[in-house]
Structures are given as structure tokens and as C-alpha cells.
């Protein structure tokens, strides 16, 4: 039955076919989820320098602006592109480190006093494993996030969206080598983006 369905898929879809759900897949997925929960803890506990340690030195951290486009143009035009024009974030580790340093000055008034923030991560799926499940070194992982921010007294924002990550295994554990953050908003419905996603 499975074979029949796969036979009917077009070539592109077949190339994206899900990794077979073996015990090894679920073990790896549990590892990745654990990594994400740890990451969320570091940000929400305001351990920003420790969070930076989870980022590869060559990280690409990207949040496009989402645009309203005509049906059929989504793939080509809905999102601004990494490496060209203006996005919300198109950053490297230097800039992310600056953002952390800024919060730690204690006079970054947009985060002083610090906001209360909770990161929820869900819908984790491993989309690709390199070289293979027996000895994974690099993963493409998709997930959803729900970030709740409350600051000072009444100011509250909810950020919901998707993340497309590439994780890399190092001697110090998993590192984020690439992160694309798709926030489900067109005009940003928040005065600032002072948290990390």
C-alpha cells in the first residue's frame, strides 16, 4: 500500500518524502526536542550568553517579512529573501552577540526592565539527516513556536510561527547552524522584536 502511494508521487515530492519513522528516528527526534526545550529555557531564564553558545559560529539567523501576494506567487514572492533587501532579521553571530550585549548593558530601555517571555516549541519534525540516521551529523528540522511576551504592566504580544533549522552536531553537542523564522504576520503587530526566536 505504502509503495503504491509513493509510486504516485511526483519526483519533487518523492525527494521530500518523510524519513521512515524507525526507533532511531524517534530517538533522534527526542534529542532534538530536548535541545529545543533547553534552548527555550536559556532564553526565558535570560541566560542569553549561554544561548549564544548554542549557535554555530557561522550561523545564519533569518526572519523574512511576509507579504500579501496573489495566489500562485507564494513561493516566488511571499517572503523576503535571505541575502537580499530588507527583512526583520538577516544576521550572523556578531550581530546576535551585539543584541545580547545590548540587553546586558542594563540601559537597553526596550528590555529594561526585562520582559517576561515564554517560548513554546512544538510540531518538531526531522526532515533530513546527514549522512544517515546511524551517525547523524547534521539535521534539517522544522518546528512551530508560540512566544508570549509581557512587559512592564499591560504590554503583551504573541508571536506565532514556524522555524526551519539546520542543526549541526559538534563535540559540545548540537549547534544551530541555520535558522529561518517565519512569523505569521504581515505588518508587524508589535512595537519591537526584542526577543530571540
Amino acid at each position, binding site marked *: 500500500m505504502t509503495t503504491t502511494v509513493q509510486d504516485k508521487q511526483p519526483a519533487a515530492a518523492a525527494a521530500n518524502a518523510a524519513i521512515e519513522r524507525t526507533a532511531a528516528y524517534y530517538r533522534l527526534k527526542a534529542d532534538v526536542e530536548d535541545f529545543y526545550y533547553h534552548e527555550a529555557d536559556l532564553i526565558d531564564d535570560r541566560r542569553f550568553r549561554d544561548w549564544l553558545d548554542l549557535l554555530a559560529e557561522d550561523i545564519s539567523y533569518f*526572519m523574512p*517579512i511576509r*507579504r*500579501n*501576494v*496573489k495566489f500562485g*506567487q507564494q513561493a516566488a514572492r511571499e517572503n*523576503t529573501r535571505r*541575502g*537580499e*533587501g*530588507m*527583512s*526583520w*532579521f*538577516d*544576521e550572523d553571530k*556578531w*550581530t546576535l552577540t*551585539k*543584541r545580547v*550585549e*545590548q540587553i546586558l*548593558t542594563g*540601559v*537597553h*530601555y*526596550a*528590555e529594561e526592565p526585562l520582559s517576561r517571555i515564554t517560548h513554546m516549541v512544538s510540531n518538531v519534525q526531522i526532515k533530513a539527516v546527514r549522512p544517515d540516521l546511524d551517525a547523524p551529523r547534521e539535521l534539517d528540522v522544522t518546528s512551530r513556536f508560540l512566544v508570549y511576551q509581557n512587559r*512592564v504592566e499591560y*504590554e503583551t504580544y504573541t508571536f506565532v510561527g514556524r522555524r526551519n533549522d539546520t542543526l549541526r552536531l559538534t563535540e559540545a553537542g548540537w549547534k544551530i547552524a541555520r535558522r529561518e523564522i517565519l512569523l505569521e504576520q*504581515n*505588518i*508587524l*503587530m*508589535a*512595537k*519591537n*522584536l*526584542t526577543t530571540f526566536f
Partner: protein
Amino acid sequence: MSVRNDFDQLVDVKNGFISREIFVNADIYRQELDKVFTRAWLLVGHESLVPNPGDFYTSRMGDESVILCRDKAGEIHVFLNSCRHRGMKVCRYEQGNTSLFTCPYHSWTYTTDGKLQGVPLHRTLYDGVLDREANSLVSVAKLCNYKGSIWATWDKDAPDFHTYLGDAKIHLDQALDCRDGREGGSEVIGVHKWVFPANWKFAAENFLGDTYHNPSHRSVDLIGIGPSAAAGKKGRRDDELEKAKHVWISFPGGHGVHSAIQPEANEYIESFLDNPILEKYFRHCFEERKRRLGEQARLLPFVGTIFPNTSYHGRQPRGLCAWHPHSPTSTEGWRFFLVDKDAPQEAKDYLRHYYMRYSGPAGMTEQDDMENWLYATAASTGTIARRHPFNYQQSMGAYVTDHPLGGEVSTQVTEQIARGFYRRWTTYMQGGDWNELLGSPASNRQAAE
């Protein structure tokens, strides 16, 4: 609650006090939409957003949606984005190319020059009654393509845009001209849009030349995010104005700028230590500009606001902002980021990164501005708060009126610009004629009184 409608009392620029009501009051806000935003010239966009026939870009004027469109013949138009039949937005895409705007509601269609073309069952339902010409999309009264930036007004009696700008022109020019001194030549490389809970005038005033708010950016200055930051320089910008004499100018039309005049020697100041290619490029631009403009090259723009709600950053991070009113206590910020169209790719790429880390809701510098505007608005809504006007007494009288740059020129940080802005705002709110709005002494009104 009844509003004291005496704007002269609410805006007391002579003594330097301005009521908080004008920043929070819903009635005053509604009057602003009617009396300021239907008359003043407003920034709509940039020609680079609609380069080809049929290209459109949806924008805003005041609190309303408009379409910036280049018609099939290449002419640029600005229309209200609302069907003449039942008001549905005829375009809900941000940008694109089309030959027709088709209303989703009853399928009336409009051509790219705004003319009503298709009306379903026209012969049966409307024959002999519906005048197509009279049911075009509502067009602005006047439109100006100024060095690529597109401006419009709903007031057919408004003066042309150059007259409206007055002596503020040469300051705005330098945000729009090429870095090497050639006229125009900029392009928009992206637009940030976001909503923040503050009155729109806080943002407009911030860019009017409120250099006094510098301490709120201490965090970025401490860590350094400028183009020489990786080389160890602190601060948030380049150093090109470090030897300049700064001027703060209030213009009679309500515009205000903070610009800088380089010393006579006017030598290039190294500003891009992090990137030798950029250093070479900007040095080249500097020398070329000096060669082209001569003595005039000494004037460099910094920031400014063109009345009422368009602001610019003339050098870095270079761009135009429109502060669209949403409600008395909410504003939609749009920032059009500019580069020279023919700048090398390396320069464009560097600049966009710098703009992203500096500007807007994700920008390390401007996040702190938004915090100020929000809580200044929030803390002014209370009954007691409203009884106590804001203090605008900074540098009272410290300006000259005979400076070659025109307007009221101050060489120290001053709220004279803000006083000038609100003085003109008052004229709009009182329904002044265009002579008065441009800053000529009240003519008929005073004579009649």
C-alpha cells in the same frame, strides 16, 4: 468629555507649553485626520516600487489605504483603495503587476489609470444611469515625483510640492540624491511596516531634530553597532559629522531638520573601518560630491521631518519614514530604506545589514525610541496628566532668522523646531488658508478680526 477647542490655548508656543490633549484626545485626533491629513503633502512611496507599466504598490495616506500605480502608459497615479460601489478594497496585495483592479465584491473593474471599466450586467442594470467617468477610483488631487519619492495631497488648492517644501528642500534632497552628489538616483531596497502604541506626533517630533533624546540610545553607544564597530569603535553610527557644526532649523511650513555643516577644509573622515571596499567606495563618493557641489558639499543632512508625518534619515541609516496615524494612541510606522541604485552590490549589502540592526522594531537603536513613545503616550492619557502640559521651553529664542539656509536656525539643540511644528499644526487645525499654512502671516483672517 468636552474638548476645549481653543488650539491657541492648547498649543502655547510663546511660553513653551503644549497640552497633552493633542497627543491623546480622540476628538482632536479625528480633527487631525480631517484638517491635517486631507490637506498636507504626504509621502506615498517611491518610483522604484513601481518600475514598469502596470506595477502597483499599496500604501497609506493618513489612516486610509491607497494604491500607488504606474499605468499602462507609464504615468504614476495614487488612488483611494476602495471600490466606488460598496467600498471593498480593490487591491489587497502589497505589490505586483496587473492590467485591472477587480473588486472581489461585485466585480467592478478599474484600469491602471483608475477608470471604471467593467460593470457586470451593465446594460441591464445601469444603462443610461451610471456615468463611468464619474465613478473612477478616487484620485489624489495632486501628485509629485520628487527625485523618485512619490508625494500626494487630497487638496486641489495645495501649492506645488516644491513650494510646500520651501527651504527644507536642500536637506531632504540629500536623503534622495546620490552619495556622490548626482541628483536623485535612489532606490528602495525594502520597507518595514509595524504598529506601535503611541501618538504619531511622537515619531514625527523625534526626527524633527530632537537630538536631545540621545541618552536613550546609550545601550547601543556602549556596545558599538556602527560601521567600524567590529574594529573596536563604540557608538552607533559613522564618524563623518564629528568635526561638523550642527544646525537645527525650523521652517515656516512646519518642517524641521537637524543638519550639519562640515568645516571649510572638509576632509573625508574614515568611517568604515570594518570593510576596506566600503571605505574606498564612500571616500570616492565623498571626493566626487565635493568636486560636483563645491562649497555646497559642506552641508550634510542628518534627520528631519517634512510636515506632518514624513521623516528622513539623510546619511545612515538612510531612508524615508511615514508615520501613519491609526488612533490617538496608535501609529503604523513605514520605513522605506534607500540606497543609490547604482551603488556596488557590496555597498548595498553592507548597508542593508546596517539598516536592519539599527532601524525599526528589530533595530537595536530604534527599539528604545519606541519604548519612549509608548510610555510617554500611555502616561499622558490620565485625567491629572492631561491637566499638565508638556514643557517645550528648550533654547527659547536661541535662533537667528537671517541665516543663508533660511528658516529659524539654531546652533544648539533646540525645541524651536518642535514649537514651529506645533505652531503650524495649530494653523491646520484652525483651518488656515495656504498662505498661512506656508508660514505667511495670517492675511484675511487677522484683517477680518
